[in-house]
């Protein structure tokens, strides 16, 4: 029981698609930023990855070898792959209604999962990051 409790209190980070790719591809313009950010985080933090991110990684336009490598590396890095459950639907609707700047389905889902799991969002997508901080302000 104690172990479960400690695990629940462990700091969580949600990885977005852009962050996963920047982390594993040294040719990405944000590779150094991803390296710097992850160098400041302890190795034993909990990484969560939404199913939607895994889907985007599965359809990224890299060569097949690269696509498979980034997909597999992200899956291995994740402590858990998460999704919206049936029981979240009403909560998700309320969350989306509160978003002032209307955003797309994938963005809204990623934001919702970050807040639901009390996870810090790791992304290089400027618009998503902006909306993430807007929501933090709204939630006080």
């Amino acid at each position: 029981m104690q172990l479960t409790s400690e695990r629940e209190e462990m700091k969580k980070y949600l990885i977005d698609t852009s962050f996963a790719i920047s982390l594993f591809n040294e040719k990405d313009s944000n590779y150094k930023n991803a390296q710097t950010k992850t160098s400041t985080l302890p190795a034993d933090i909990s990484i969560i990855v939404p199913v939607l991110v895994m889907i985007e990684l599965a359809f990224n336009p890299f060569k097949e070898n690269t696509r498979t490598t980034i997909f597999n590396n992200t899956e291995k890095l994740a402590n858990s792959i998460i999704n919206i459950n049936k029981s979240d639907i009403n909560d998700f609707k309320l969350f989306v209604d509160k978003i002032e700047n209307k955003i797309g389905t994938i963005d809204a889902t990623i934001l919702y999962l970050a807040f639901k799991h009390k996870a810090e969002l790791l992304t290089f997508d400027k618009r998503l990051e902006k909306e993430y901080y807007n929501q933090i302000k709204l939630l006080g």
Partner: protein
Amino acid sequence: MTRRIQSTDLKTKTKKVLDLASKGEDDLILYVHDQPKAVMISYDKWIAENAPKRNSKKGKKEKTLWDRVKDKVISDPTITDSAAYFRKRRDEEIPN
């Protein structure tokens, strides 16, 4: 010059040894009094053998998330700005 560090608490003793070593006294010899018989030992030898790794000046650094990743990095120039690429794709695929 000989230093005597008599604390039996490993953490306190480590701090004292590291404080002295950081003042450039690395070559000095200290007595370790919690042994069955007091022994003389160099700072470096004591630190290497006794100091907890994370506090040791020669110890390994704490592992970071990057350590879980660094051996898996690849090099592919197909997309050099994945953030912009996926922003565009998300905007195109899913209308508001």
